[in-house]
């Protein structure tokens, strides 16, 4: 007998009230902090997976969602920030998520409450933290003051800084130097700095062809899509991009626009994009959830529950990653679905899925149209209690193509809708 038919038959025979903890699902206050790729997806899928019965609140300080993926195109000037902006309206009207525009100031883990900047207290039974990353500005001497005076901009969270960085490039004299520094991995969006170099080069090639780009990398080599980026730099932008590995920034002087390193000579540039080391978002660190070297949150990969706090789940860039798991928007969306399913199962009194699956797809634009990708599939490994990539799966583009540029925008439209629509 077909298994589903068998189960369906059993179901049809039964006409009894529900058992288990289904009422827990209806009563539980589930609060999601952070409306990025992880948090917004979690809020939506908690509603979908519970047949719209779970009570879900999303707390997000920004009025609109702005995608970090593709935001390097804004830095390069081929797209506007409006092209990457979406509303939270559908989460409210279509999916019944309560959206609060506010900032979480603190978490009381014992009382299971959140204190918001507005002064409001919010109670939770289940909490999902998806706060992204915070910049460890204090790890680079002088960076905080350089940021303050506008001499350096990270633009590693899409928004006004992304636009401001493009404006600095636009104001730079032809023949100037753009320097981007990259911290040791892990950091948000492994290929992002190299894609940014491509986008700035694409802009320079068109408008400021005498200008140069320095890629100052603390890592030993390009962290992601190395061969593809090196080939693109050599063929698309010959002589324009200089890559320097093992350049670890220790200090920056905003007044003289000088970068200092552990070993090498100082470097001066006209536009400075200094990316410091990163860690989990402030709220996770302040709540004591970042229990991996004080930087990242360790989680149980079956449900993304913090290993240090029951009923607090952590998603996206804030977690201590599994092997070969990138800190990406696509991956955060994938985390969210596993966590949402596990929470719905738990509150229903069901065993959670012992074999979840994650995917990752990441497109990088090497100019305004041509794209390269990296993709991977991560299956849960029960013996090692972590996700592992499947041997023989995943991979990279063979070469940049306009076709993948079309797919990249298709991916964006669909993942934005999957996250928010």
């Amino acid at each position, binding site marked *: 007998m077909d298994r589903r038919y068998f189960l369906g038959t059993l179901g049809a025979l039964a006409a009894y009230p529900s058992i288990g903890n289904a009422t827990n699902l209806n009563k539980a206050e589930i609060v999601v902090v952070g409306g990025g790729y992880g948090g917004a997806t979690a809020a939506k899928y908690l509603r979908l997976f519970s047949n719209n019965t779970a009570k879900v609140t999303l707390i997000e300080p920004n009025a609109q969602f702005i995608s970090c993926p593709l935001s390097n195109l804004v830095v390069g000037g081929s797209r506007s920030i409006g092209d990457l902006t979406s509303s939270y309206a559908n989460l409210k009207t279509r999916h019944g998520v309560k959206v609060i525009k506010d900032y979480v100031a603190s978490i009381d883990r014992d009382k299971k409450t959140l204190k918001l900047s507005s002064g409001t207290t919010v109670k939770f039974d289940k909490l999902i933290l998806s706060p992204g990353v915070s910049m460890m500005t204090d790890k680079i001497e002088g960076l905080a003051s350089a940021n303050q005076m506008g001499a350096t901009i990270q633009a590693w969270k899409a928004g006004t800084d992304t636009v401001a960085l493009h404006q600095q490039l636009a104001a730079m004299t032809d023949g100037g130097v753009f320097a981007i520094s990259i911290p040791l991995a892990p950091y948000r969006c492994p290929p992002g700095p190299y894609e940014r170099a491509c986008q700035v080069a694409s802009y320079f090639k068109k408008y400021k062809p005498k200008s140069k780009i320095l890629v100052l990398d603390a890592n030993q080599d390009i962290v992601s899509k190395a061969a593809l980026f090196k080939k693109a730099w050599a063929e698309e932008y010959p002589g324009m991009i200089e890559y320097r590995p093992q350049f670890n920034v220790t200090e920056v002087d905003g007044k003289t626009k000088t970068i200092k390193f552990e070993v090498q000579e100082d470097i001066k540039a006209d536009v400075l994009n200094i990316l410091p080391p990163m860690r989990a978002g402030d709220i996770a660190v302040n709540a004591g959830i970042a229990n991996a070297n004080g930087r990242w949150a360790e989680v149980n990969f079956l449900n993304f529950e913090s290993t240090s706090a029951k009923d607090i789940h952590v998603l996206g860039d804030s977690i201590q990653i599994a092997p070969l798991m990138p800190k990406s928007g696509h991956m955060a969306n994938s985390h969210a679905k596993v966590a949402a399913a596990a929470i719905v*199962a738990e509150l229903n009194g069901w065993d959670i899925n012992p074999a979840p699956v994650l995917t990752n797809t990441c497109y990088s634009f090497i100019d305004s149209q041509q794209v390269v*990708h990296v993709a991977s599939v991560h299956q849960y490994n029960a013996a090692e209690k972590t996700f592992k990539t499947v041997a023989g799966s995943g991979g990279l583009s063979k070469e940049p193509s306009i076709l993948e540029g079309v797919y990249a925008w298709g991916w964006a439209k669909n993942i934005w809708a999957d996250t928010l629509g």
Partner: protein
Amino acid sequence: MNFKKYMSFRAIAITFFSCLCFNVSVTAQTRSAQDLYQRSLAATCANCHGTDGKGQENASMPKIDQLTSEQLLTQLKAFKSGARTGTIMPQLAKGYTDEQMQTIADYLGKKQ
């Protein structure tokens, strides 16, 4: 024990235990637990192809909810075996077991 077998075993065990002892329904529980598994596995496709395979207009990705389960499974297997070429899909398909592909195709495929 893989998840489908595990869920079947668990469903049967809970069904008989519940019917005999607690006089309560297992309809929603067993169906929804299985649905939840199917739906969460199928959701791994949604990042690129849209929620429940319903992609956006002009998004350039195939609208996989428009395929029957059989058509969907055939394509997934072709990507996995290398019979069908592509950019991302041949790489991702190799990461799924045949059983997972069947589950995804069953869930997302257009209902006749």
